[in-house]
């Protein structure tokens, strides 16, 4: 029996390690439940984050626990996990109460689509082909600028502008392969960072790209008045509904299109060549494949997908400024989605994009707690729990944050300043950095890891492993020689040629 055990796949060997992590997450989940119970569901941190968000985080945690019990590298488990995560996200979106739910939900879905498309493009470049691309924003920028410029300056139809943007990005992607053919991982990454920065700085100084603001008389960099597709048609047909609804439908269908394209590529022989290039390109070349051609093609295709994301972004924002190309607000977020979701798996890209969108939204809606709260004043307040959490939060954000990012901490600088405005935007980057770090440490393969290629065949052929036994290749079960079906999984046995001899 010992031989059977030593032959088990590695995911089974590391089960205990995964289970330990699952228990920790489960405890966190129970802690959230207790917290909700104590506060009777009314807790808020910093008076802005609703506790229902934590409930859903707990739900996500339990889903992870659930998924960890299985081999997540199996396609059907990966599907269940994806459906679970996406539905949890939708619950989260719907449960958020807001003054205007339509705007809230549409903007979340558009944001997920845009980041999802970018992550799928990145997956084509980095997850499948192994070309580390830190210049996602380069291709996105080409798409956004072309779409915006053609539409707002020359009045071209939005769809034609978007198509032009995609085609330009594809051509540029193909051409990018020529100077970078000999560059491996890190060096290619440096080139792509440079490309993104070049485009941003050009956008900053190039006068063609400046929008004209008549009232102030000063032209500022950026492109304004970008109109989305079928804007007039929508406004005539549904005057009382916001245009965002149509844009949501368009962007979600573009995401679906990008997903299908990427899945087709991933599961085809073409995708197999790409994956082998990721593993060892010299060997692929010596098996008769022109590696350069494949790299150039996938740079073009991925660039096109990213450019589509850029075009939708331009439609959504209505006007684009060079700021949107700062790496901290785009490329790094896409990379976080890529790392969290699981490289090499397109479903993971969408999950990662949803994750990032949620963090982005939290960090945008968060407000600093009042500066004058303390445990002493909390005793008098109606809700002691809410108030004391404010105190802790204030300590973390203001005092520790102040020490790290300012010349002095908040409390030492001033004793009584309830109206000081403090920008908590940096929290977003801290949280995202932390998530990337934890994800690298504990989920090396991401939430939904790459699915291995294990083609189904309805029979198994097994060679004799040792005297008098046949091993099933599907379940590792040892069978008697001459058996017709596997004892464990019931698959038909065809004895191999070599054992017949």
């Amino acid at each position, binding site marked *: 029996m010992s031989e059977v055990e030593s032959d088990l*796949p590695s995911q089974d060997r590391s089960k205990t390690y995964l289970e330990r992590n699952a228990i920790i997450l489960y405890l966190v989940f129970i802690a959230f439940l207790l917290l909700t119970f104590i506060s009777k569901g009314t807790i808020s941190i910093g008076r802005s984050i609703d506790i229902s968000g934590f409930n859903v985080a707990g739900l996500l945690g339990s889903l992870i626990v659930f998924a960890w019990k299985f081999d997540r590298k199996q396609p059907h488990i990966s599907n269940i996990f994806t459906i679970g995560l996406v539905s949890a996200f939708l619950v989260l979106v719907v449960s958020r109460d807001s003054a205007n739910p339509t705007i809230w939900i549409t903007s979340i879905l558009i944001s997920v689509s845009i980041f999802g498309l970018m992550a799928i493009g990145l997956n084509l470049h980095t997850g499948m082909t192994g070309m580390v691309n830190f210049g996602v924003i380069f291709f996105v920028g080409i798409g956004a600028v072309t779409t915006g410029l053609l539409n707002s300056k020359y009045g071209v139809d939005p769809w034609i502008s978007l198509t032009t943007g995609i085609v330009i990005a594809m051509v540029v992607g193909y051409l990018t392969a020529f100077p970078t053919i000999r560059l491996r991982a890190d060096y290619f990454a440096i080139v792509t960072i440079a490309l993104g920065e070049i485009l941003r700085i050009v956008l900053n100084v190039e006068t063609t790209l400046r929008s004209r603001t008549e009232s102030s008389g000063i032209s500022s960099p950026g492109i304004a008045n970008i109109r989305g597709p079928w804007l007039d048609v929508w406004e005539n047909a549904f005057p009382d509904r916001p245009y965002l609804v149509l844009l949501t439908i368009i962007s979600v269908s573009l995401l679906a299109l990008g997903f299908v394209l990427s899945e087709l*590529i991933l599961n085809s022989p*073409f995708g197999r060549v790409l*994956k082998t290039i990721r593993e060892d390109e*010299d*060997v692929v070349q010596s*098996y008769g494949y022109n590696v350069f051609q494949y790299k150039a093609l996938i740079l073009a295709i991925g660039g096109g997908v990213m450019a589509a994301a850029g075009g939708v972004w331009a439609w959504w924002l209505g006007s684009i400024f060079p700021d949107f190309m700062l790496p901290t607000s785009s490329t790094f977020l896409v990379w976080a989605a890529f790392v969290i979701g699981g490289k090499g798996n397109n479903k993971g890209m969408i999950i990662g994009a949803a994750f990032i969108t949620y963090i982005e939204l939290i960090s945008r809606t968060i407000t600093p707690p009042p500066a004058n709260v303390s445990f002493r004043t909390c005793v008098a307040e109606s809700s002691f729990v809410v108030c004391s959490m404010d105190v802790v939060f204030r300590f973390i954000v203001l005092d520790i944050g102040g020490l790290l990012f300012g010349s002095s901490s908040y409390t030492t600088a001033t004793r009584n300043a309830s109206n000081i405005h403090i920008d908590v935007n940096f929290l977003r980057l801290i949280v995202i950095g932390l998530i990337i770090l934890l994800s690298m440490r504990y989920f090396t393969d991401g939430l939904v890891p790459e699915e291995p290629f294990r083609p189904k065949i309805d029979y198994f052929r*097994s060679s004799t492993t040792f005297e008098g036994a046949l091993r099933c*290749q599907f379940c590792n079960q040892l069978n008697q020689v001459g058996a017709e079906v596997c004892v464990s999984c019931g698959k038909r046995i065809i004895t191999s040629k070599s054992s017949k001899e």
Partner: protein
Amino acid sequence: MRFLRQANHYFEKFKGVIKLTNILEINDLTKRFGGIQALDGVSLNLNEKEIVGLIGPNGCGKSTTFNVMSGVMEGDGGSVMLYGEEVYGLPSDQINRLGMSRTYQDTRLWRDLTVIENLMLPPKNQLGVKVLNSLFTRNRIKKEEKEILEKAYDTLDLLEITHMANHYCSELSGGQSKLVDLGRVLMSDPKILLLDEPVAGVAGPLAEKIFERIGTLRDELGLSVLIIEHNMDFILQQGVDRVFVMSNGRVVVEGTPSEIQQSKTVIEAYLGE
């Protein structure tokens, strides 16, 4: 590309009309790494349906010879004639398409892919490796994939590692990796096979079986095989037709196994003077 077509044309022409004997001929191959002369005018030849061994002590330039002749590494000079055509300096993919496949000493499998996926890449002229085909001719590709899958399983059966088909290559042991590597190179339907230590780390009986199998493949498919082997005694017992002995970047002796066994130069090369 034009040259490639031309070479293919010659190959097709020669195959029917003339019986080529000397299908691979290497003359005066040189390669220098900084101050080390790795190859100092290596000359080899390989006849059709022949198994030739290339042996020599550590660091004598066996693997470098393979790297330069298969186009993986740039050489400093020389000539490589494949079916009477100069292929020296061509990229490795074009040389492979002319029918010469090679393995690597450290196997270099695609580690994060399954064994079966490793085996399904090398077959030549696959429809689906073109991006447009992979998007628009799904049914034909499915059929083709099925054939390749069957062939891959046959190859695994041959090497007795069918039970590892769905495992990751990173989970294989050293000997199993060697077998998968051999399977991978057989999947590419080569005419000329360059094997870099194919049985290093493979258990004795299986190693002998592999050599036996290479012999039958030679007879069945008309393969010509050039094998690097470190273990001189082993290769001399395995029924190779000729052996080249290398030392310090040169071929010092050429001959049949019995000649090699009696040669003083070989003993000097291995043991020093």
